[in-house]
């Protein structure tokens, strides 16, 4: 995907101008490539306040998810996840069939369905629709896909004021920030910065009270809805049997965006299909509970075509832009499972790494464990060499995932691809091969263990940290190792082996 040059950010934005400023094309999500995670991760882990927010919020969400899913599904939770996984997997296995079915049924309902191979095509289609409609003001509900295509700067460049209406996204847009979580975009923001943004951009009196801030935003947005002539949304699901687009929101903004303006455009990835409304029911139950711990999102819209003659509400025109943008590449059997994702965000909340580095450290639209898989797939493994590696493979994501994507397995698979494509550094490749070789024979293994012990214990003796006592237990400690091991000792001490190994004990027992 070639990126659109990010729009320069205007500082000191005066209150007279429209506030619809792009967050898309933001260098937080589209950094120079290849992307190295260390600088941002180091900054994030040193940011006490950020850590507090993100860590506390994600941890709470994770606890809630566990409570709610176990209360709702009990022993059947595993079976329910199996079902969710099977529904998505089946759909992906027969994607061409269901896509065709969707297109036929949506078209019959009066929807104009468009195919976009990549971001440029998707945006071009949307700009064309906007131009024909003579759109001046666009209200937009939450969509990760439009972040992916960087749509907003382009709409604004052609003079369409575009306003994010999801409260979180609205705040992000006001503060020229970028979303850092696929479900909770402003999880990293503090109240003060929100209050300042409202004061600066909307001329509102400074307040940190969430209620008051919500009221200010609401008043501002009402006015926009009234005047908007274009509504843009994403789509949580597409139902093949009915040709419907489904969106799940909690604020009701999605309904305004998709029904008040004359024209509605939905941006949806091709992997969002489910076969029937019955399948949709299963997915909705899983999504709401794992995502936000609700039995169902407050608003679930199933939109099938534009307004019909006898109906009062709804747009005159409804478009669905089906986006590929690298998805058919992931559809190959080795990686297909990744496309089951319903973007519930549970893996982000469960991930210890995400909790500590926050979404922006991933340098991409999709962050967290699922982002660590699909970002390198979408934008090139060589461009994001850290994402598959910056994981302890703890498996919390896999356990949380409602559609059972085996994320650790695929992280390892991407690492293997890095090795085979020689993206992994030459020195690392040498080191692992030599290490494996020394482990491959009994005598070299013993020699290696012995040399390591000797070196570590000698260092500890010099440092004066060698303990005395039980030769199978007393050890020394190192706090300043050279080379790669320095990464270890920069954070914590390294224990040395005790004087004797298990094997020595075994030999001594004269056992067979």
């Amino acid at each position, binding site marked *: 995907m070639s990126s659109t040059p990010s729009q320069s950010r205007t500082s000191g934005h005066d209150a007279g101008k429209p506030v619809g400023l792009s967050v898309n094309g933001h260098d937080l999500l589209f950094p120079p490539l290849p992307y190295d995670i260390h600088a941002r991760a180091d900054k994030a882990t040193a940011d006490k306040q950020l*850590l507090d927010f993100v860590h506390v919020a994600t941890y709470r969400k994770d606890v809630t998810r566990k409570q709610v899913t176990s209360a709702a599904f009990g022993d059947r939770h595993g079976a329910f996840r199996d079902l969710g996984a099977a529904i998505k997997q089946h759909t992906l296995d027969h994607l061409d069939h269901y896509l065709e079915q969707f297109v036929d049924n949506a078209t019959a309902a009066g929807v104009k369905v468009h195919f976009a191979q990549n971001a440029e095509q998707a945006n071009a289609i949307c700009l064309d629709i906007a131009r024909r409609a003579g759109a001046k003001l666009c209200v937009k509900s939450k969509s990760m896909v439009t972040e992916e295509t960087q749509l907003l700067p382009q709409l604004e460049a052609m003079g369409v004021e575009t306003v994010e209406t999801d409260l979180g996204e609205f705040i992000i847009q006001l503060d020229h920030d970028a979303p850092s979580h696929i479900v909770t975009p402003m999880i990293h923001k503090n109240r003060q910065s929100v209050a300042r943004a409202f004061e600066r951009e909307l001329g509102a009196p400074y307040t940190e009270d969430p209620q008051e801030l919500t009221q200010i935003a609401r008043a501002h947005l009402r006015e926009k809805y009234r005047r908007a002539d274009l509504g843009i949304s994403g789509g949580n699901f597409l139902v093949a049997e009915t040709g419907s687009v489904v969106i799940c929101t909690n604020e009701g903004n999605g309904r305004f965006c998709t029904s008040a303006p004359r024209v509605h455009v939905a941006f949806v990835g091709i992997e969002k299909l489910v076969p029937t409304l019955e399948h949709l029911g299963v997915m909705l139950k899983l999504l709401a509970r794992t995502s936000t711990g609700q039995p169902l999102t407050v608003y679930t819209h199933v939109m099938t075509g534009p307004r019909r003659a006898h109906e009062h509400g709804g747009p005159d025109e409804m478009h669905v832009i089906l986006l590929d943008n690298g998805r058919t590449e992931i559809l190959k059997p080795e990686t297909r499972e990744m496309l089951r994702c319903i973007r519930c965000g549970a893996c982000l909340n469960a991930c210890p790494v995400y909790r500590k580095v926050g979404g922006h450290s991933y340098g991409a639209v999709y962050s967290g464990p699922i982002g660590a898989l699909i970002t390198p797939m979408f934008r090139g493994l060589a461009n994001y060499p850290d994402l598959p590696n910056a994981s*302890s493979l703890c498996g919390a994501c896999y356990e949380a995932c409602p559609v059972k994507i085996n994320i650790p397995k695929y992280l390892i698979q991407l*690492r293997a691809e890095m090795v085979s494509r020689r993206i992994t550094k030459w020195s690392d490749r040498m080191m692992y091969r030599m290490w*494996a070789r020394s482990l*491959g024979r009994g005598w070299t293994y013993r020699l290696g263990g012995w040399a390591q012990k000797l070196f570590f214990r000698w260092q500890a003796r010099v440092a004066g940290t060698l303990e005395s006592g039980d030769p199978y237990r007393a050890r020394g400690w190192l706090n300043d190792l050279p080379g790669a091991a320095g990464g270890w000792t920069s*954070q914590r001490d390294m224990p040395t082996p*005790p004087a004797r190994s298990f094997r020595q*004990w075994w030999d001594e027992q004269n056992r067979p």
Partner: protein
Amino acid sequence: MKVSLFVTCLTDTFYPRTGIAVVKVLERLGCAVDFPQAQTCCGQPMFNNGFTDEARDLARRMIEVFEDSEYVVTPSGSCCAMIHDYYPQLFKDDPAMAARAKELVEKTYEFYQFLLTVLKVDLKSLGAKWSGRVTYHYSCHLRGLGMTDEAVRLIRQIEGVEYVPLPKAEQCCGFGGTFAMKYPQISGTLVRDKVACIRDTRAAAVVSNDAGCTMNISGSCRRENHAVTFLSLAEIIAESLGLMEATAV
């Protein structure tokens, strides 16, 4: 019952007392323990870092070394999970080896999984006693084995142990093998979080059953000046049964 010990490379070198404790406990429970000398490493470091061919060679070696064993028991959740989760997949193009890998999977157990599911021990009836305030670190790789509170159940069977649950127990300690060295800040932040939780429990001893986690957490406790004793589950059980000298806490 014949049991072969797979001690793992880290336990062999860094935590030999754990290996000794496993042998003593199993023998006390009536098992005949052997230690196939040719064993080295399960290949997890290679596999996790994408060196699949190298991991496959080590897996083949493991399969051969334990070919004749009735049961294979290991005091490491992560090495056990490596065998269970990935060995069959490593040989998916070689049906004969895949079948042998599957045999190994079926007879390989994490130490306390073995105690509970195969030997069905009840430490209470064996008169296990150990006194002190203890918390337990849950290693992430037990997830892959479908294990949850097995260790806690065993710890609670020991008379005199005052067990305190560790807050945020399911959050990774940040070890992750080479992850700890390649992403030191992330790993360091995680392990300090773990140390803070341990501090909150005011436990005198932490039962930690994976050598990697123990190196990480104990190293961080030392750096952060939090004095606490680390024991593997095998050690605390061996001590509670009088098979090893009790650690003073």
